[in-house]
């Protein structure tokens, strides 16, 4: 009952949200951005030019463009216009609670579980799970993304991906190409078959060959059914027909080198069409990727600590040596400590540290290595926090990636991989009016995205004021609000709920709900230190009172952190997304 109420409530709020957004009709659907630097596509820039958008399409671009009378004019002086970014693979629009990494469900036959429990749902379409109101859509749009090839979350065969606009009045409205791919990975099921990578690979062979034979059987049966055994209709197997016939590619998630190797071996053996995605460590397989012509999607996420902060701090310190603030002093002390530790380290340990540093640098330089090898690539956003996208991209550029290649990886290359080059990926006449407007070159650290147009719809972005009193990472009023969270309890079902943070006069309080508890629990003491928020409370689990403490790091509309239960008896990761107001 509570569940049903929640669903009703959810439906109601989502409907009312879309009403409130769209009940005032736009005055015009024609826009002209004048006197701007227009990057038609990577390497092709027209300075002091005008771009006219009409009815969701790019109407005209160039120097001598006549501006329609009904156009809203945006003075683009000194601004830059780019094609809207395209995520070649992401989970945009899929609520985080869709990602259920449960323990083994009760009553399931471990050796032969139902397909959906085993992570085999190739029939699943993202239409069923995508939500207009999911925070990830606005978060990605804020970073300049206008289109996403959204893949379902899950394990070895999670389902089919669709290309969606990161805006729209309904899910129907958002989808521009449905079920264009199959999502594949080597992720095993929790303590049921296939419980390991070797099981997953065997299961891939089983399902693929089964589908191949079933397809053939069905075809023969259609021609001459008399005397032939009736084909069986497994929805999973039927959903694989398009993979077997190579009508749709498998977007195979292969983060590490060994994953990528294994995916390529499987592809070679079975012969499906493959796009290798989520690649974090693929540079050593460049020759093989190149010779096989495999389409490549690199991960936008980088290893933890891969982007050094020290350099920047050092620079900053140099800049304002005269006013030695407390913070700088702290930094200096920290550095002294680190140096001291360095001295105490053995030669072996030092060499190890050096190798870790080198390894991190290799990951950051991956994109540049692919560019040098002449392999076109796009980016996958399945694992990156949206607030890290720009940061990571700039780090890759610092490691040798050219700006043109970076832009291509966000525009023309994903369009090509997804087969939508004729409608998106560049600012040419007649293409979808997906574009972004920045106040200076996007590739400058300080650049702000001022407008994002999705399908001709204007979104004006709130530009962060750089001269804000509090420096980056400090508490901001943005923290206040309601957040959905998921605690990934090891070996058990995830716990979900909402966390409401409230602030008044520099003090924070909170309210938390867990699972379907309708009574929120009040928390009067919430500690806020920079972007870190921590608090404790006591709840009752199975009649036992249980102290729980949470520590989370908030960045924009997302947070992650740790939940500690019963004084550290158990810890579990927690993630959250802000519910848009």
């Amino acid at each position: 009952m509570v569940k049903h109420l929640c669903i009703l409530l959810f439906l109601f709020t989502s409907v009312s949200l879309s009403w409130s957004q769209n009940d005032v009709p736009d005055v015009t659907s024609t826009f002209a951005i004048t006197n701007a630097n227009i990057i038609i596509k990577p390497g092709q820039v027209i300075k002091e030019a005008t771009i006219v958008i009409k009815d969701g399409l790019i109407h005209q671009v160039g120097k001598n463009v006549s501006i329609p009378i009904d156009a809203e004019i945006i003075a683009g002086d000194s601004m830059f216009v780019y094609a809207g970014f395209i995520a070649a693979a992401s989970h945009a629009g899929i609520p985080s609670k869709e990602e259920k990494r449960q323990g083994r469900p009760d009553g399931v036959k471990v050796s032969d579980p139902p397909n959906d429990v085993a992570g085999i749902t190739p029939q699943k379409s993202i239409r069923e799970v995508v939500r207009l109101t999911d925070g990830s859509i606005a978060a990605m749009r804020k970073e300049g993304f206008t289109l996403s090839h959204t893949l379902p979350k899950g394990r070895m065969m999670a389902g089919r991906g669709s290309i969606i606009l990161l805006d729209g009045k309904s899910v129907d409205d958002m989808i521009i190409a449905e079920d264009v791919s199959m999502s594949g990975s080597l992720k095993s099921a929790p303590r049921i078959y296939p419980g390991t990578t070797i099981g997953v690979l065997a299961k891939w062979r089983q399902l693929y060959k089964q589908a191949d034979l079933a397809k053939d059987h069905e075809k023969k049966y259609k021609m001459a059914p008399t005397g032939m055994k009736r084909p069986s209709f497994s929805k999973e197997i039927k959903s694989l027909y398009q993979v077997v016939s190579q009508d749709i590619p498998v977007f195979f998630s292969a983060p590490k080198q060994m994953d990528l190797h294994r995916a390529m071996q499987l592809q070679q053996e079975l012969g499906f069409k493959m796009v290798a995605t989520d690649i974090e460590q693929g540079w050593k397989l460049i020759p093989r990727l190149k010779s096989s012509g495999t389409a490549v999607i690199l991960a936008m996420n980088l290893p933890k600590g891969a982007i050094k902060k020290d350099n920047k701090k050092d620079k900053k310190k140099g800049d304002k040596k005269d006013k030695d603030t407390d913070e700088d002093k702290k930094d200096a002390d920290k550095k002294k400590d680190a140096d001291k530790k360095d001295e105490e380290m053995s030669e072996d340990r030092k060499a190890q540290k050096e190798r870790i540093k080198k390894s991190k640098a290799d990951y950051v330089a991956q994109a540049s290595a692919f560019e040098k090898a002449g392999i076109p690539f796009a980016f996958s956003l399945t694992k990156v926090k949206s607030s890290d996208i720009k940061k990571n991209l700039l780090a890759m550029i610092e490691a040798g990636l050219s700006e043109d290649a970076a832009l291509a990886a966000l525009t023309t290359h994903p369009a090509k991989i997804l087969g939508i080059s004729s409608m998106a990926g560049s600012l040419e006449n007649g293409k979808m009016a997906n574009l972004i407007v920045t106040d200076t070159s996007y590739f400058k650290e300080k650049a702000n995205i001022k407008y994002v147009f999705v399908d001709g719809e204007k979104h004006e972005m709130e530009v962060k004021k750089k001269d804000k009193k509090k420096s980056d990472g400090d508490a901001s009023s943005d923290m206040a609000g309601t957040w959905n969270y998921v605690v990934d309890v090891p070996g058990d079902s995830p716990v979900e709920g909402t966390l409401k943070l409230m602030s008044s006069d520099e003090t924070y309080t909170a309210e938390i709900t867990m699972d379907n508890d309708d009574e929120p629990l009040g928390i009067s003491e919430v500690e806020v230190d920079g972007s870190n928020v921590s608090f404790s409370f006591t709840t009752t689990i199975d009649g036992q009172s249980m102290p729980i403490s949470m520590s989370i790091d908030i960045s924009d509309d997302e947070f992650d952190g740790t939940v500690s239960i019963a004084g550290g008896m158990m810890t579990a990761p927690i993630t959250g997304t802000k519910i848009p107001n």
Partner: protein
Amino acid sequence: MASQWISAQDVLIKNGTVITITDGVKENTDVLIQNGKIKSISEGLSVGDGVRVIDAEGMYVMPGIIDAHSHIGIDVVNESTAPVTAEVKVGDVINPYSVSIYRALAGGVTTSHAMHGSANAIGGQCETIKHRYGEEDPEALKMEGAPRTIKFALGENPMRVHGEGQGIQPKTRMGIEQVFRKAFAEAEVYEKEWKAYQSGTTKTAPAYDVRKEAVADILSGEIIIHCHSYRADEILMLMNVLEDYGVNKICFQHVNEGFKVAPELAAFGASASVFADWWAYKFEVYYSTAYNAAILTKNNVVTSINSDSGELIRHLYHEAGKTQKYGDLTDNQALRLITINPATQLGIADKVGSLEVGKDGDIAIFSAHPLSIYAIPQMTVVDGIVRFDISADPVDMRLDINPEEEVPAFYELDSHDHHRCMEGVFEELFTDQH
């Protein structure tokens, strides 16, 4: 790091005491390897410039050691979710970056049998790997031409994992026999159905089953069985089952009670791969003796000594030496336990396991006789490439560095190096390991 292994596969090893295994011991003899294969074993060989010459004067040159039971170099050991998982292959998850491979080289081991674990009655397919540490392509470690092998397991492990753990067959040793019989019978039917379809007798293809395909390959003799076993009664049971199905390619692994049924093993043509002196780690493995290898050998059972461990694999020559204390085996008999005999058990005796012209250039060079407790491996050569050299042995031999691992696990004594037969089996069942 990998650049230190030049790709040249030519090497001349001069003036060593050459233990050929199959053709006696030759003093002051040279071994010439060309293109990765043994070209000549003779005195006073010479080569032109550009070929590496290794001075082995005062040293012992023997074939690279072979381990018929190990779990190094693979990322997954057990798919423990079903009593029969013949379809899974550890060859799918070879990890060339496993530093255990280098450590095995440092013990003179050039080939190992990377096995699936013993959680299931019929476990997964295994992979015979060459220790080509430095190669980064997993496929490059697979030994060319090595026959397919598969893991079976008798006794307590499958009973505990599936019987106790899931409440399904096999709950008893009798149940294990029935798991084999059922799998074999089903595979036989499956084969018949496919033949009927292929000959046009039936119109539709049978439901494809990757598991039955693998079991059918066992029945057709294409795959050698390597069976985890302890008790004599169960060993006899499996031989009876195999006889019913006309299968005879089997090597019993561990086989601690093999000494009780040595004549029966020999008559069946089964081989045995044992520990030198290791038992009593669970109930079914108390009745054991360090004389096992010697008794089996003297009863004409092809016997090997294995490691089942990333640690023991580094001193298999010591393990072989124990058979001289317990059973008075000759030097040649003892060394056969870690060279030509395991090669026979893996179906690769035509390529490795002895120093003969035409065989692979896989060589271990020791400072003293390898059965001496003072022997230290000096250099290990695989296909004519020096992969381990004690004089050039840096501290950190890793090929791949995890960017997020501040304290590398390799630095600690990694527990997973040890006895991984039951690795991956659910924690609640993780009491015994072999």
